[in-house]
């Protein structure tokens, strides 16, 4: 994440009432925590922790193209939140072909709820929602191939 972006985020925390902000964008997480001193509850300057930056997979034939880091303030302009595929593979809407799908259109889901499986080389990755809301749209049909970063679901957080 760029220094400029982090500074912007710090300002955001300073100007707001929130104590902690964690932003993940394309494999990079920044956590900003405001320390409240025990006695008078006076807020200090937020501290920045950049916990873990994974090495990018760097093989020349890798199909993984990281899009440019582009962080917008949490006040998102668009209404829907996207759930994206974390890897190249095959998308499955249900745990087994004859089983009901994990989620349906219009269904209310909670944070951490499994929404689908993406399979690559017989490794099954159960994708969990990072947001609560209502499933506004399923973007991929079951058993179809998906790309890294491809949008799988649109979630309406206000729904």
């Amino acid at each position, binding site marked *: 994440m760029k220094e400029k972006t982090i500074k912007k985020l710090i300002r955001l925390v300073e100007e707001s009432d929130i104590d902690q902000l964690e932003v993940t964008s394309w494999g990079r997480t920044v956590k900003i925590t405001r320390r409240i001193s025990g006695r008078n509850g006076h807020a200090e300057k937020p501290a920045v922790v950049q916990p873990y930056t*994974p090495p990018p997979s760097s*093989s020349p*034939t890798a199909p993984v193209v990281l899009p440019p880091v582009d962080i917008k303030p949490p006040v998102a302009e668009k209404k829907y939140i996207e759930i994206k595929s*974390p*890897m190249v593979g095959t998308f499955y809407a249900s745990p*087994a072909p004859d089983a009901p799908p994990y989620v349906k259109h219009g269904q209310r889901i909670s944070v951490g709820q499994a929404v689908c499986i993406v399979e690559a*080389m017989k*490794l099954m990755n159960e994708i969990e929602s990072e947001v609560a809301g209502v499933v506004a749209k399923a973007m991929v049909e079951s*058993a*179809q191939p998906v790309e890294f970063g491809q949008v799988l679901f649109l979630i309406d957080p206000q729904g």
Partner: protein
Amino acid sequence: MTNSELEQLADKVLEKIRSHHGQPLEPTKLADLYKTSEEEIISSIGILRNWGYTIKADKERRYIFVNAPDNYLSTEILYNLETKFMGKRIYTYYTVQSTNAIASQLAIAKSPEGTLVISEHQTRGRGRLGRNWHSPEKVGLYCSLVLYPKIHPTLAPGISIVTAVSLADTIASYDDIDVKIKWPNDILISGLKVAGILIELSAEIDRIEHIVVGVGVNLNQIRSDFPEELRKQATSVRIGTKEKIRRVEFLQRFLKNFERDYAAFKKYGLKDARKKITKYSSLHNKEVKLKMGRKTIIGIVIDIDEQGRLVLDTKEGIMNFNAGEVTTH
């Protein structure tokens, strides 16, 4: 003494009499050694016999170790296990729905890396996409391992290849049999399926939380043990090698191979595994059909790349795939 204290005593007594190489040991000596009564030594011998150990008593009521059962007891698995962490924490069951499901729970609870969940029998052994894995008792190996590799999630599918290679090496260590890997991780003997692997990943977009590696191997089945509908597709290591396999030993060899291959994978990626999968591959230089959703691609398998993807020479050129169902025709 509580039951669990008696079981602990039984473990110690077993170690002692086992290391005595068939020489008899007096119960009073054992009682002195473990600062306990002769009655409790006798009880602990009872426990060991219950577990399946054969322990003889001679005329003077001294104990002699005869042999160990081929059961998945923690004590047996740990005995002479040559690994640093793989399979060092063990959860054994007689019957479970699925070892993968239990291992996932243990992983969420942060059980140490290499934790092994093993069951004699699975009622709902998970195959891929909800398919069942036929898991009868006493003849197979059904287990799951918990891993926390610090690699990027996009590299995680490589574990599939690594597991297949470790398993193929383990089977090949028994006999000069025709073991093949059908990409990505089906293990075949003479063209019939002998083992299945199912891997479940739990990850954030940038970080792996845990991986559960589930392995099902047909070890000691004979032909008639398989249900009619599986006989033309399935085989066992025993059918391949024509000798009964000591299951605990097979597991120990697999754990050792897998620990080695997993370490190499974390360090160097699929560099080593690729050489081996090329050796074991049932698909190399063959024309195959790869089905991906509604699309079917036909091509000749020319390689498996450094990410473990299948490389096909197709009409539209050389393409790499990491998903899809392969059939030869």
